[in-house]
């Protein structure tokens, strides 16, 4: 008798509707995350990779980075062009004629390539004149001057100094 009742109650218990999963707290977390991510979303069209050994200077500028050739220079005077290592200044920390020539030649080749692409592509953005300079904040102006000098010899006319917000 008792056993029968137990069995009957068990089936009734099983028939009861399962409680819906409580998703409210998860929803709260995800909404907060969403708001945070949207607030930090940048509409910059360029994604720059910055080597670990380059500390970019801080600035109040709010202009987003535009497309262009990227020249990066670290504190230990290693130089990259479009994220590929190109050269390193010696212990004398001075620009020699060979180094200047090497960089100028590389920049000329990239510019030529970009010009060719631009000629063949409709509505292509003109990025063949723009150099994005990513330099360590502890470098001296002499290196910046050299880079601008070499770049202008290679035909580039616009220089953008890449900075971060303080």
């Amino acid at each position, binding site marked *: 008798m008792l056993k029968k009742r137990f069995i009957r109650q068990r089936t009734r218990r099983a028939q009861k509707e399962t409680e819906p999963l409580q998703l409210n707290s998860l929803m709260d977390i995800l909404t907060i995350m969403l708001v945070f991510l949207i607030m930090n979303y940048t509409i910059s069209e360029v994604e720059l990779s910055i080597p670990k050994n380059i500390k970019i200077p801080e600035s109040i500028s709010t*202009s987003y980075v535009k497309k262009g050739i990227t020249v990066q220079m670290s504190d230990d005077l290693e130089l990259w062009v479009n994220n590929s290592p190109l050269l390193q200044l010696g212990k004398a920390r001075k620009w020699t004629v060979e180094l200047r020539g090497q960089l100028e030649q590389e920049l000329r080749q990239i510019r030529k390539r970009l010009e060719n692409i631009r000629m063949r592509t409709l509505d292509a953005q003109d990025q063949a004149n723009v150099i994005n300079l990513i330099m360590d*904040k*502890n470098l*001296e102006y002499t290196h910046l*001057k050299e880079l601008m000098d070499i770049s202008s010899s290679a035909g580039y006319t616009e220089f953008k100094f890449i900075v971060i917000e303080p």
Partner: protein
Amino acid sequence: MYKAPSARRRKKKAAPLNLVSVLDMVFILNFFLLSSAQFIKIFEIGSDLPIYQLTTDDNPKDKELELELDIRGDGKILVKNNVNQGLLGSFSYLDSAKLDEFKQFIKKIKTQYEDENQVVVKSASSVLYQDLVSVLDVVREERVEGQTVKLFNQIIFDGK
């Protein structure tokens, strides 16, 4: 006597809000934003005019101001007017209080010459890049109540 059944008894439990589809959407959005998020905000300072270019107006005599900044290695900035070769002021860029003084001075010049927006920058070789950027920040623009007010935002580097 017949008693009508209580309405309270007939009240059904309100169905819980079905948030599953919203949750799905938010979840996907989160993934998308996380994958494209750039937590360091990167900006640029433009030098739109070519290096070595000096102002070549058709009639330079009409110009009253040709602002030049001479950033020296000893921590001083000399503000000059190239039209009459006059020294307008001398400031220090190593001290933030002095840099503020420099900012006020630049703002004063801007109010006098509102149409002028070019500045020629001369710098000593030993000046650090961060110091140069700090000086350019002062000269280029100013933030007033979240708005950016342009000062002398066309920077020309003197390559001599």
